[in-house]
């Protein structure tokens, strides 16, 4: 591939490059809230520009403006040097722009192929679909990704990571010259993420410009050529990726230093304390098989595993959201068999679900209504009354306790940034006063600053005697746990004390390989 080499050489050369995308002086207000103010970015062909910033910094808004899903109040967009107006998504398509948006945007009832074909304007002659051509194209795209999702499977039956692959596939169905990816790897395992990096390399080699958004800073530094940082809708600066390390990038993003995840230090080892929950042989075929575990008071127990290991299903069994096949549980020494989340919350067990927008929040309702939702319970035997004034007072307290950034407790949660939404979901369940709080991927899509604040909340709860079960695919953050369980194919395969719960060791256990062979793996 001599051409590609020649291109690489060009990219390194210090001559001013032609840009394929330039956004200048972009501003955007949402009902008086300044989401973007005078932001400019520029992207060159064959390069990866990462966009970094805390939750709510305006990254997605910038991408959505580019996609024609929002209109900017001010600013100009140039594509390949000429100024363009993008007022609707089809304008962006016509200009050769392609997108993976932050929220999964698939049609659940459609097959993978239908989803990939969606919006592919030239489906065939006279508006009639050319199914064969579409299938051929989809297969080509999948070959290119090197990952096959069955094209005729319905998206609603696919695992979350497969859904992201479909989304990625769709963005490659058209021959785009610019691809914007808004947190594409949030639900990916390391392996899947690696595959994405491969695709990005391939695309850039073809001269495609990539706009890349991620909260995983190591990943950003690995993938990107340039980094533009936003804070509160304003430009902080643009840097070459090579000038940065995680600490300095973090500083740019948050505006202060954030300490890394540290191991938990407790005066008394909670794993030696009284038991709160014991689970014996819990099974629900095919995803959960013969799971047994013990959780102590005030303990933070981590659950590591690959996506699809059955952790979410286990958590749902613990709160009675799905019927149990077989097995038994005791809570606080008493038999515990919840038949619904209602029973679970009454018994003091709550789950922070993994998809905050579809499972955790009522987007159009206010912050206070959402925060109060899990604490609504009729006092035994009589009709409970509800006092909005009390709800607002409690919500105000929670907002300051959890550091939720919102203009008022009456604001609709749909208008908050991802990290703040996540804090509200966590806060909602904390306000229900559980003895056991289960968190399923609590920091997906949450920025570094908010993330450490969520860790603080978790640690604080544990210190107050609440037991925590934390499911996470980000093995680094499992460092805050006292003990980590590893799940593989529906069963618990290992229990690792805090001192040995390193990222590499956990990864190896997840794959079922021994750590020696894994450590040789050049990643």
């Amino acid at each position: 591939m001599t051409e590609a080499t020649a291109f690489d050489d060009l990219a390194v050369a210090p001559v001013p490059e032609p840009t394929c995308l330039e956004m200048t002086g972009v501003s955007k207000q949402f009902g008086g809230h300044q989401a973007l103010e005078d932001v400019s970015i520029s992207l060159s062909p064959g390069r990866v520009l990462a966009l970094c910033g805390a939750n709510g910094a305006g990254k997605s808004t910038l991408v959505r403006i580019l996609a024609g899903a929002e209109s900017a109040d001010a600013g100009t967009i140039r594509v390949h040097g000429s100024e363009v107006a993008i007022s609707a998504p089809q304008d962006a398509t016509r200009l050769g722009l392609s997108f993976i948006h932050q929220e999964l945007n698939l049609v659940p009832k459609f097959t993978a192929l239908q989803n990939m074909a969606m919006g592919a304007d030239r489906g065939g002659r006279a508006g009639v679909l050319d199914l064969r051509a579409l299938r051929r194209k989809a297969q080509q795209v999948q070959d290119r990704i090197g990952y096959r999702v069955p094209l005729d499977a319905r998206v609603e039956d696919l695992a979350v990571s497969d859904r992201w692959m479909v989304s990625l596939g769709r963005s490659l169905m058209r021959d785009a010259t610019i691809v914007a990816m808004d947190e594409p790897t949030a639900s990916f395992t390391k392996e899947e993420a690696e595959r994405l990096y491969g695709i990005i390399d391939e695309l850039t080699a073809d001269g495609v410009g990539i706009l890349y958004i991620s909260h995983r800073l190591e990943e950003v530094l690995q993938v990107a050529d340039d980094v533009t940082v936003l804070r509160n809708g304003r430009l902080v600066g643009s840097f070459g990726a090579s000038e940065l390390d995680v600490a300095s990038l973090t500083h740019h993003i948050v505006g202060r230093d954030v300490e890394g995840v540290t191991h938990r230090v407790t005066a008394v080892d909670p794993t030696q304390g009284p038991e709160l929950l014991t689970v014996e042989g819990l099974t629900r075929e095919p995803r959960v098989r013969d799971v047994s575990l013990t959780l102590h008071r005030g303990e933070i127990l981590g659950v590591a595993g690959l996506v699809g290991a059955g952790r979410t299903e286990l958590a749902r069994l613990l709160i009675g959201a799905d019927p149990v096949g077989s097995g038994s549980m005791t809570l606080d020494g008493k038999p515990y068999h919840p038949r619904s989340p209602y029973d679970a919350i009454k018994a003091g067990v709550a789950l922070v679900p993994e998809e905050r927008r579809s499972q955790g929040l009522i987007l159009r309702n206010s912050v206070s209504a959402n925060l109060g939702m899990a604490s609504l319970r009729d006092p035994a035997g009589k009709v409970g009354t509800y006092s909005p004034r009390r709800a607002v007072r409690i919500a105000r307290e929670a907002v300051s306790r959890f550091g939720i950034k919102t203009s008022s407790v009456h604001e609709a949660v749909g208008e908050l940034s991802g990290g703040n939404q996540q804090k509200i979901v966590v806060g909602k369940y904390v306000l229900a006063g559980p003895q056991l709080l289960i968190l399923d991927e609590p920091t997906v899509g949450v920025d570094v600053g908010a993330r450490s604040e969520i860790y603080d909340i978790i640690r604080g709860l544990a210190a107050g005697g609440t037991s925590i079960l934390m499911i996470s695919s980000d093995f680094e953050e499992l460092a805050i746990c006292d003990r980590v369980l590893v799940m593989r194919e529906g069963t618990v395969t290992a229990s690792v004390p805090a001192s040995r719960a390193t990222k590499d060791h956990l990864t190896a256990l997840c794959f079922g390989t021994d750590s020696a062979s894994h450590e040789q793996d050049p990643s």
Partner: protein
Amino acid sequence: MTTTFVDHAAVTATRPASARVWRWFGRYGALLVLAILVVGTSILEPTTFATYDNFINILNQSALSAIIAMGLTFALVTGEFDLSIGNVASLSGVVCLSTMVDKDISIPVALLLAVLIGAVVGLLNGLVVTLMNVNALVATLGIGTVAVGVNYAVAGGTPVGLPDPGSFIQLTLGRFLGIPYPVYMMLGLAAILWFVLNRTVLGQSMQAVGGNPVAAQLSGIRVDRVRVFAFVICGICAALTGILLASRTGSAAVSGGDSYLLAAFAAAFFGSAVLRDGEFHVLGTLVGVITVSVGFNAIALIGLETYWQYLFQGLLLILGVGVGSLARRRAAAA
């Protein structure tokens, strides 16, 4: 913890004036349509329309529609539909009157019977929706059709009249302090239903279920039970309307209440544009019903042709909802 509150005052100051105007229209657009209607008719018919008597008259005419529409609001708030309300109203009237004729029961007992009928049908609706997992539109259409069948089985399809309707008719014709009883019932029920929806755990749960049933379920709300409750309240209100209709006319016919179905939907949807951004609420529904009554009253007083009535009603609905809706979209864009 870090600083939390964005300075709200500073934020609003930067909002463009046009956005504020649109926002105002978004909230008050539907009320504006009502106001224009009232002012316009007052100018055209100063001596008959804008009188205290006519005001009471309009409220009295609104009462029955309001009761059924407020009940429907509960189903809508919970994210469901109820297509059986018209049939329930018909059924309740026919069954109560038949029983009064055959068994000579007293009026309070008849009222209780109506509540029971409404509760049973609502319960059936709720159970079909929650246990059989059937879409509410289908379930209530089906149960509503069954209710029509029961209605025919009870009275064979012929209108039922009371031999001596006197005291039963007083239920809707009687007045206290010059105001007809139905007006008190409407306002009293509105107060109770408002309280249930906004000041009880059940009401909050309904709103949560309507907003996001999955999130509500995971927050420990017994979603199915809340849904069933909503259908039961809806059914009871429909049955009450049915018996009041029977009292107003002194008789009941097999399809007497059917026309309330679309009227109640129209009122509730109109109401969802009143003061709120497309959310259903009791007060809004009440305003919706009254707007429709004012419109009808105005047409009757001015004396327009039949086709004007329909054109007018259709446009009223579209404009009442549309002005607010359009304005809200503009406000968001501004």
